């Protein structure tokens, strides 16, 4: 579908990409860490929408429910419990140059490949993925389950520990 000669799919992708970039700049530039974390949740939602546009609806749903819903909200709650301290920025130009050098292979890859089409739904089907994970990747799934359990227990024991008086 086209609007004014522009492909609607690419238009929505570009708008979502612009939103993602703006939110990530806010994450880095916000003075208040709570706002930073809140913008991270908005960035997570935007990235989930981009994943859905690529055709990975299952991953997008998991990204919203698990990552944004649990992880990022945990960051927001944790940061809001902590008193702000004066933040220092160091060597902005050097950091920017290092970031440009580190991300240049990705830019090269992006500029040298064509825009992808959404994958067919059969490749990221829920039943296919659950079969893959339960039959071919049950050991990684078990390890992830164990790491989540250990993280939960560690979080409870650390946060319940008494501070030094």
């Amino acid at each position: 579908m086209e609007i004014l000669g522009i492909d609607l799919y690419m238009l929505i992708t570009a708008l979502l990409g612009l939103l993602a970039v703006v939110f990530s700049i806010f994450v880095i530039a916000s003075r208040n860490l709570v706002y930073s974390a809140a913008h991270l949740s908005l960035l997570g939602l935007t990235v989930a929408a981009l994943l859905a546009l690529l055709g990975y609806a299952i991953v997008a749903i998991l990204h919203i429910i698990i990552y944004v819903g649990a992880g990022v909200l945990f960051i927001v709650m944790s940061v809001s419990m902590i008193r702000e301290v004066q933040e220092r920025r160091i060597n902005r130009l050097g950091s920017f140059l290092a970031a440009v050098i580190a991300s240049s292979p990705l830019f090269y890859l992006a500029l040298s490949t064509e825009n992808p089409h959404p994958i067919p739904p059969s490749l990221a089907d829920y039943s296919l993925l659950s079969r893959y994970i339960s039959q071919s990747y049950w050991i990684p799934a078990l390890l992830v389950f164990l790491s989540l359990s250990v993280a939960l227990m560690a979080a409870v024991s650390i946060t319940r520990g008494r501070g030094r008086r």
Partner: protein
Amino acid sequence: MNLFLFIASILFLISVYGILSSRNMVRMLISIEVMFNSVVLVILSLGNLLAFSGGAQAVPILVSIVIFAIALAVSEIVLIFSIMIGVVRFRVARDIDTEELVTKER
């Protein structure tokens, strides 16, 4: 030009800048989360490229890896921020500089 990879590259650039330019531990961790988002986007964009160039059987593997990565990222967030809360409860500054890590918060 691959628009999805281009967006992921910009997110990666911003996150690396955030990690390198800040001395605040929380800001660095949040920047690492931006990097995680960009990497997820890169992996699945490459999956789309593979799907249309004869590597369609690799797509479910990449999706499984990303699902595991999301779950592990959440456990990492929970653990690191719990440690951070524990550190702050001991009234130690959150600046990563060694000399300030051992001094009490002002």
